[in-house]
């Protein structure tokens, strides 16, 4: 095995599972698309490996390539995005229902990981991508605005509405499972 290949396996390939998980969030659970995305990312990274400074944060670098690759694809296939219609019930805050029984939101911790992952993946794309960038990757509004080429105000409102939808969905699930008393 070449020295380049050895270095790549040791520093980059070890992040494969993490990248694949992130790719699934981006693609909304579309496994074939997620695998393609990871594959493109890793190949781009390998071809550019000589420029990578060994010892710097490889995971962050790979994540940036993956994100840019995804956003470029997104732009290419998106014609005119249809605005996600406001859904009063799905976007209602849940805190008022919980302030007496679970004001600390302990019920979240009882929900299995698969359920929150499904909830994220099933968000409309316009909502899902800002959530992945902000809540999973920890990027700021300005950065997201530049990446998605939408105004900061739009980033804020999409995030706000997406989070409300996630909360409602997790709340319904928790009621269904008997973790909290519904109203």
């Amino acid at each position, binding site marked *: 095995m070449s020295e380049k290949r050895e270095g790549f396996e040791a520093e980059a390939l070890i992040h494969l599972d993490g990248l694949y998980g992130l790719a699934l969030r981006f693609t909304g659970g579309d496994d074939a698309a997620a695998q393609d995305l990871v594959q493109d990312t890793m190949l781009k990274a390998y071809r550019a490996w000589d420029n990578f400074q060994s010892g710097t944060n490889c995971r962050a670098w790979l994540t940036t390539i993956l994100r840019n690759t995804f956003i470029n694809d997104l732009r290419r296939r998106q014609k005119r995005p249809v605005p996600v219609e406001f859904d009063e019930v799905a976007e209602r805050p849940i*805190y008022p229902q919980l302030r007496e029984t679970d004001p600390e939101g302990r019920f979240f911790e009882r929900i299995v*990981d698969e359920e929150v992952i499904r909830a994220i993946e099933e968000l409309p794309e316009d909502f899902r991508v800002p959530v992945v960038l902000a809540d999973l990757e920890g990027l*700021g509004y300005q950065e997201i605005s530049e990446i998605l080429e939408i105004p900061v105000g739009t980033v804020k409102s999409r995030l706000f509405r997406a989070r409300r939808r996630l909360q409602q969905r997790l709340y319904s699930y928790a009621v269904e499972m008997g973790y909290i008393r519904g109203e």
Partner: protein
Amino acid sequence: MTHDERPPGQGVDRGGGSVAGGDLGCEDAMKNVFDYLDGELPPDYSEKVRRHIEMCKRCYPYFNFEQAFLDYLHDRGVKPARSDELEERLRTLLGEVDTEDAEGCD
């Protein structure tokens, strides 16, 4: 229902009148909950919100709740996934790049 038992965003003094401490009202504080928790407010305004929620027994638990939700999302949302098939295919493709590289050197 006493003043302190109203759910957020409902029946709060319009115009952002102050309920407890500071020069910011509950409505203004709650409206900015995500901006505040995301660290996206201008520093002086953020400080006003901080002072308000510290003193306000209505906003304090609400902000805590939303923070718990965001923490939960961050902790559970990124979960690694495993695919042996993907790894195998990738190793083959990397091998092809190695071959290209080797040929390029000749």
